[in-house]
């Protein structure tokens, strides 16, 4: 297997880890703000679980981020690999992932308005902002990984 294919596989694995750990960490952080920080009723064990997941999730996300960063540097040092790994199909997959993330954020913003105005659920800017980032970014990362994996099959 040539080096470019090895890089492609490694990138897919690193991005899968990054997407999964981001989903866990950012989700826990959103929950942490929504319940623990804003003092909404939450059973103690669950509050502890959310808090612990926030910390552990962050460590996992940071580690996978470092893996992705170091891999990115190796790829960038090889111009042929860099060009091939950013070929037109990968760029199309990136575009599709970002478009999906845009629509998810739009839908969440709409849902937040319905919750606040229609159902009277109080949402702070911090919680809403974190939720938008959590789900919007997770969708972009996950969809890119899925599209690349489907193409490689």
């Amino acid at each position, binding site marked *: 297997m040539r080096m470019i294919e090895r890089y492609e596989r490694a990138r897919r694995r690193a991005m899968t880890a990054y997407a999964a750990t981001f989903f866990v960490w950012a989700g826990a952080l959103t929950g942490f703000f929504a319940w623990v920080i804003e003092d909404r009723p939450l059973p103690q064990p669950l509050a502890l679980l959310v808090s612990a997941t926030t910390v552990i999730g962050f460590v996992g996300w940071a580690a996978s981020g470092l893996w992705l960063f170091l891999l990115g540097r190796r790829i960038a040092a090889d111009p042929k690999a860099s060009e091939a790994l950013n070929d*037109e199909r990968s760029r199309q997959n990136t575009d599709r992932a970002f478009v999906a993330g845009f629509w998810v954020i739009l839908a969440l913003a709409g849902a937040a308005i319905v919750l606040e105005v229609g159902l009277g659920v109080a949402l702070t800017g911090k919680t809403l902002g974190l939720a938008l980032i959590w789900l919007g970014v997770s969708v972009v990362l996950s969809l890119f990984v899925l599209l690349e994996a489907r*193409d490689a099959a």
Partner: protein
Amino acid sequence: MRHEETGLVNRLKERRAERGLTQEALAEAVGVTRKTINTVERGRFVPSTVLALKLAAALGSRVEELFFLERSA
């Protein structure tokens, strides 16, 4: 293989096989990843004009021999 949305048909796999090339070898020749060659062959991806020309050159074919619209087949 036929791309459903556009009706573009390609004979990339057949020509590649005639030349005895793997997907990887062809990918290397035109500067893309193996999975991109795979998606073109399976009719999932319509290559750009530039990539189509590169593929044709790499396979010693004319572009029209590799890619054509179904109605003109």
